[in-house]
C-alpha cells in the first residue's frame, strides 16, 4: 500500500532530481564563462528521464529501501557514481551522461560558453524545477485528501 503511494511520486522525484542536476550543469557553464579551453556541457533531459523511467519500470520495488539493487544479483547503488554491478538492469543513475555543446563558435581562448544561451537555459530550467515541485505538491495534496476521506 505504502509502496503504491511512493511509486506515484517516483516520476516527479526523478524529474526533480534531473532538474537539480541540470541546474548544476548550467551553473558550471555560467561559472566558467571566462575560463580558457572550457567546453560548455549539457545533457539531453528527455533521454535521461526516459533512462530513469526504464530503470524504475524494470525494478518496480525500487522505492523500498531494502530493495534498491539492480536485480536479483545486483549490487546496491547508493551513490550516483556507483557502477552497476552484475544486475541485469544496470541502467544509468541520475548522473546523466554529459555532452559537449555543439554548433557554437569558440572564443579566441577556445571557450565554448555562450552566456546568453546558458542564462536562458538556466532560467528555463529554474521555472521547470518549480513546476516539478508544484506537481509533487499537487500529488501530495491529492493523496492527503484521499486519506482524509470518511473523516
Amino acid at each position, binding site marked *: 500500500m505504502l509502496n503504491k503511494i511512493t511509486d506515484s511520486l517516483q516520476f516527479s522525484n526523478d524529474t526533480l532530481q534531473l532538474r537539480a542536476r541540470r541546474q*548544476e550543469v548550467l*551553473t558550471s557553464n555560467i*561559472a566558467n564563462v571566462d575560463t580558457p579551453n572550457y567546453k560548455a556541457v549539457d545533457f539531453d533531459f528527455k533521454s535521461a528521464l526516459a533512462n530513469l523511467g526504464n530503470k524504475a519500470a524494470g525494478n518496480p520495488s525500487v522505492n523500498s529501501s531494502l530493495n534498491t539493487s539492480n536485480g536479483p544479483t545486483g549490487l546496491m547503488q547508493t551513490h550516483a557514481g556507483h557502477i552497476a554491478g552484475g544486475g541485469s538492469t544496470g541502467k544509468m543513475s541520475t548522473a546523466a551522461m554529459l555532452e559537449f555543446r555543439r554548433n557554437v563558435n569558440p572564443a579566441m581562448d577556445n571557450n565554448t560558453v555562450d552566456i546568453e544561451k546558458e542564462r536562458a537555459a538556466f532560467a528555463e530550467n529554474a521555472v521547470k524545477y518549480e513546476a516539478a515541485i508544484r506537481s509533487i505538491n499537487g500529488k501530495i495534496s491529492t493523496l492527503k485528501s484521499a486519506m482524509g476521506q470518511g473523516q
Partner: protein
Amino acid sequence: MSLFNSFKLAGSAMQAQTQRLNTVASNLANVETAASKAEDVYKPRKVIFEAALDKAKPGSAAMANSVEVKKVIAEDVEPRKLYDPKHPMADEQGYVYMPNVSAVEEMVDMMAASRSYQSNAEVMNTAKSLMLKTLSIGQN
C-alpha cells in the same frame, strides 16, 4: 544534493572574478607609476582562470566542480618611454619609463568581470530560492 554544489561553484567563480577585478584595479592604479629603468616598470597583470573538472564517467563529458585562478601573469609588454628631464625619476638621457597599461582594455576587463560576477550572484539567488521551495514540499 546537487543544488548545494551550485553554491560552491558559483561562489568559487565569484571569488575568481573578484581577483580579476583586483588585478584590474592594480593595473589602473599603476598607470602613472614611473620608473627610471625599463626593467623596473610595473607590468600589467592578468589572471588566468582554470576549471577544476569533475571526474567524468567513461564516454561522458565533464562539468566543472569549481573555478580557480590558475595563475596571475605579468604581461611582457614594452614600457612607454617618455622624454621628461624635469621628472625626478628621469635617467641620464632625461627619459622616464611608464607602464604600458591600456586604460580602455582594463575598463572593458572590469566591466566583463563585474557582469560575470553578477551572473553568478544571480545563479546563487536562484539556487537558494529553489532550495527553499524544495524544503517546503508537502507543507501546504
